[in-house]
């Protein structure tokens, strides 16, 4: 079993299950900070999915997307935190 098959048949479904669990928290979350934390986790899981997909398809260029996604996730979390603190 090559690493590409291993990634696409075992690891990516596993990470998809994790994204579904974070999405349930995003839907249910009783308060706004819960949803922000869940959204942050979904973005972090997306970075992991991109890493696994870059290995599975043998395309190292995809790691650039991971860099940009990490930057955007940080800016989004900080913007949400400012918004929640101003709202009080």
């Amino acid at each position, binding site marked *: 079993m090559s690493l590409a098959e291993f990634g696409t048949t075992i690891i990516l479904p596993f990470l998809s299950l994790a994204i579904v669990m974070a999405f349930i928290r995003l839907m249910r979350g009783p308060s706004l900070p819960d949803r922000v934390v869940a959204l942050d986790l979904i973005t972090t899981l997306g970075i992991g999915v991109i890493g696994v997909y870059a290995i599975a398809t043998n395309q190292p260029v995809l790691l650039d997307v991971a860099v940009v996604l990490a930057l955007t996730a940080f800016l989004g979390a900080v913007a949400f935190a*400012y918004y929640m603190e101003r709202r009080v």
Partner: protein
Amino acid sequence: MATIVSAILIVIGALFMFVAALGVLRMPDLFLRMSATTKAATLGVGFILLAAAVYFNDFGTTTRALATIIFLLITAPVAAHMIGRAAYFNGVPLWEGTLVDELQGRYDERTHILESAEESPGSKTEPQTSR
């Protein structure tokens, strides 16, 4: 050899990220959920990017992966601290099993400035009741 090491790193990283998602779904409190996502998910992403660096074995790719890991390790605590601080001001309820809330009554509600403790630093503080 590089493939086997990379596969092991991917499995470890995926397990940590799965545990982080399980924690955000099952933990009883916002702050406990945040402790799960901030630590476990960052470690999992670090392992997966390390696996990519080992697998491609190329100078540019390794530099990019390491830069992403360092960036994540720097920014994840900052973002988690800001979200937790804003949530504490919003009055997000703590878990009913919480024993000590050390920030209780220390924040000025209007200016959001933290006051230091009144007692001397050497004295032992008795556990407070949850708010």
